[in-house]
């Protein structure tokens, strides 16, 4: 449980954020310059807010009215930065143990051997940080933060300095530690893909203010937040269950409260929960159920409303069963099809538009 309410002014920029969140992974999402890092620094005790209150799991870390301001070393929040920031003069093992040795003995519940196995660090222990790849470094940095026995893990764009393959690798490890160690995580990112894959609760920051918070489905699905969540990557997030694998064609069928989706094969046992992101630009609309098309996913739904319609592009909000879906079409199409609210439409989603990064384990 995180309860935050802080104000910090630096020059002309003002951070003024208030949110509460109780979730395994809280996503702090916003464009660059929206105040994400400032907020995380305030949480970690590295930047001091002028006013406010920070409470994590019932422990007050900062309270300006009561004059409480715990030093960073006493907050016990693990901080993983964009750059790995490993100590270059220490071997991997000494890096890992840096925080562990300084944690109170009675708080040492996360075991060194366990973290080493979990993050696959066994073979790296005797190396210096210089001899590691980017992904390995970031894994060591995560392990180091975990072994300091944090109450909460802060991750500030931990994938930003990695290439695409490494990102996937580290992302999988983050999912692993969420499931395995049950450490709450505050995950900062400007990437819709990462936030929707990892976060349960999302806090949306814009210009230093928290303008929305809620479940990832709610916040990312809201058409009115599009200017902040981004046009290109905009889309909806569905919780689905693996229904079947088609080994011949390499496809997987997912069931969600609104129908089924066919996607390129994903790992996961039948019955396993999976989170799927459907980008609005990958969804087309038809007035009747089309025949003779290659598109595998045809979902019947009703039209709920339209997003802002200045410019050539319109976001159309749909209801498919119990979930909402967004389709991005041109204004011309909207007028030619005479779309209106309450209408029954068919949403078409190409199976190949799903990639590895849009399907993750929930």
């Amino acid at each position, binding site marked *: 449980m995180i309860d935050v309410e802080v104000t910090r002014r630096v020059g002309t920029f003002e951070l003024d954020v208030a949110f509460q969140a109780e979730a395994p992974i809280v996503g702090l999402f916003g464009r660059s310059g929206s105040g994400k890092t400032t907020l995380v620094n305030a949480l970690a005790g590295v930047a001091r807010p002028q006013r406010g209150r920070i409470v994590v799991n019932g422990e007050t870390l900062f309270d300006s009215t009561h004059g409480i301001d715990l030093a960073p070393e006493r907050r016990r929040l693990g901080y993983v930065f964009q*750059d790995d*920031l490993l100590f270059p*003069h220490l071997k991997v093992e000494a890096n890992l143990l840096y925080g562990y040795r300084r944690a109170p003995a009675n708080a040492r519940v996360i075991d060194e051997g366990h973290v080493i196995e979990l993050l696959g660090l066994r073979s790296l222990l005797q190396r210096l940080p210089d001899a590691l790849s980017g992904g390995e470094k970031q894994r060591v940095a995560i392990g180091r933060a975990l072994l300091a026995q944090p109450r909460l893990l802060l991750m500030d764009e931990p994938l930003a300095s990695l290439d695409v393959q490494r990102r996937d690798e580290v992302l999988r490890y983050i999912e692993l530690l969420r499931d395995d160690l049950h450490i709450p995580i505050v995950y900062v990112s400007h990437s819709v893909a990462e936030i929707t894959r990892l976060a349960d609760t999302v806090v949306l920051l814009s210009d230093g203010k928290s303008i929305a918070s809620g479940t990832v489905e709610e916040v990312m699905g809201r058409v009115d937040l599009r200017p902040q969540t981004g046009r290109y990557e905009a889309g909806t997030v569905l919780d689905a269950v693996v229904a079947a694998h088609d080994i011949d064609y390499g496809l997987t069928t997912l069931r969600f409260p609104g129908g089924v989706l066919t996607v390129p094969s994903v790992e996961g046992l039948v019955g396993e929960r999976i989170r799927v992101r459907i980008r609005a630009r990958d969804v087309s609309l038809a007035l009747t159920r089309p025949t003779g098309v290659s598109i595998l996913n045809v979902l019947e739904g009703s039209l709920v409303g339209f997003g802002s319609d200045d410019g050539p592009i319109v976001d159309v909000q749909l209801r498919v069963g119990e979930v909402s879906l967004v389709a991005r079409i041109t204004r011309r199409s909207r007028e030619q099809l005479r779309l209106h609210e309450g209408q029954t439409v068919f949403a078409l989603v190409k199976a190949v538009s799903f990639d590895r990064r849009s399907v993750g384990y929930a």
Partner: protein
Amino acid sequence: MLSVDELGIILLSLKVALASVVFSLPLAVAVAFLLARADFPGKTLIDALVHLPLVLPPVVVGFALLVLFGLRGPIGAFLADTFGIVFAFRWTGAALAAAIMGFPLMVRAIRLSFAAIDRRLETVARTLGASRIGVFFSITVPLALPGIITGVVLSFARSLGEFGATITFVSNIPGETQTLPLAIYTYTQTPAGDLRALRLSVIAVALSFASLVAAEWIARRHSTVTRD
């Protein structure tokens, strides 16, 4: 090979240089850290004061020491009366003169290496549970070690070669304050002393060379051998 006199001169020189480095190092680290990290009124003045021995004629420094630390000088009299510490005309005075002359070199090298450290490393260390002091000794100092070693070697070499401030402050007393450069100077002023001056000069070259090689060796060892 070496005469007893020569050996005495070398040992005295090493003793003076070593003492000057050992006692000035903690202060140099503190001053370098302050200059690299802190912002305070009068910083420029401190900075200039530290660098003064680098640009002043050594004789002036020696004379200032004589005035301040001489037996009747304000600081010298106080130290002698309260602690029984005497610098005037003692080897300790030679060490003090050498320390002051080598101080700017030491501070410069250490300060540069402090300034080159990514301060976010120190921030991470804090979030991992280390106190400010803990961070300083576990992160800052080890990362600045190459600069500290360079500073120590430069100031040690400078101390071995110190002449002007030493001879002005503590004179040229054989067995007490007559270090290598002073002995060489004395022989050059003595009829038929050229050969002995030459022998001592060769020794001076060897000592300086050895300290540079040692520094290089330590620095390389530090960068390749990993520590826990």
